């Protein structure tokens, strides 16, 4: 579990990935989110919950009408993304970020977070892609942690 800053940075660098529906441990993607409703939102982080069974974070997004809406974003399980390099303070209140994701089917201001673009330009996967490498049986997750 002991990780050097450089190894964490390497992990993060590996996570410059493109948006894809994240896979969840606790429920299927399709029962909550619509893969046909992609969304890209830019705003300011207001809260981070690095907790099970999924991380949640919240972001104020200003609309074209000037009205601010607080969106909720769900990511992968904290254990999974911890192993990908995330930490509790990877996103902090006040951070200006851009999120790519998929809206909830119930029409609320909730989305599955696929990637987050940080102020420094890095784009991180917030799903569970590294472990959830698919059913290929290729062992592609070997040594990923």
């Amino acid at each position, binding site marked *: 579990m002991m990780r050097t800053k450089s190894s964490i940075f390497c992990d993060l660098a590996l996570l410059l990935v493109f948006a894809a529906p994240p896979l969840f441990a606790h*429920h299927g993607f399709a029962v909550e989110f619509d893969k046909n409703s992609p969304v890209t939102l830019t705003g300011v982080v207001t809260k981070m*919950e690095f907790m099970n069974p999924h991380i949640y974070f919240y972001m104020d997004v200003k609309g074209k009408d000037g009205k601010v809406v607080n969106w909720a974003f769900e990511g992968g399980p904290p254990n999974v993304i911890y192993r990908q390099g995330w930490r509790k303070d990877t996103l902090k209140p006040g951070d200006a970020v851009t999120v790519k994701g998929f809206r909830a089917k119930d029409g609320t201001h909730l989305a599955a977070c696929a990637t987050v673009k940080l102020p420094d330009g890095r784009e991180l996967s917030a799903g569970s892609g590294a472990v959830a490498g698919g059913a290929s049986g290729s*062992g592609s997750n070997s040594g990923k942690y």
Partner: protein
Amino acid sequence: MSATKHNVRASIGPAMTLLVVLPFVCACGGRAASGNSQAAAAADLNGVWSAPFTPDISKPLGHQPPFTPYGAARFAKEDEFDDPLTQCLPIGPARGIQAGIMPFQIVQTPSALAILFENQHTFRIIHTDGRSHPKDVDATWFGDSIGKWEGNTLVIDTVGLNDRTWLDTAGHEHSDQLHLVERFQKVDNNTIQWTVTFEDPKFFTEPWSVTLPITRQNTEIMSYSCEENEKDRVHLRRTKK
């Protein structure tokens, strides 16, 4: 007399120490030899492991399982909305291996082997002391498991499962007649070939098997509480009418 008592006590002391320490010595001693695939009686399966996440177990099979008409009808109407994991219920013995997303740890002693799932911090105990299944086993989430070694392969037989777990996220179900046979074959120090055979006369016309590679993970089991911050259920929608 007292000298005899002393001698008895003196001889019991080291013996008790050995009884306590031996399982750990055996378990750890095996690790040193684990690179040798020719390991005799039992391979060393200790460690933290993970299989490729397989949310649809029909994918590695290449087709749907050989459903009975009842099994096919159940699968046709099954909805991820009803996945027991969304209710934070236990993941079950095979799904915990192939679709838990998170790794699991195997702790091995001569008489038993424990599989500790990070997912919901559930666990399996596999008895390897030669016992049989109880005659009247009550159905439980992880069933009754006994194991025996065939060379470097641990063969685990599991019965006594309830019908409340799923085999995967896609909604493959089973009844309380499910019989699992798993083969954990140590291929090398970092790889176990896992073959699971599902037998359930209520859902399947014949037994069917899937093989996946389990690979050693450079990590430790982390905390997990499904209810810690559960906020999804109110947002879930059925995917089938």
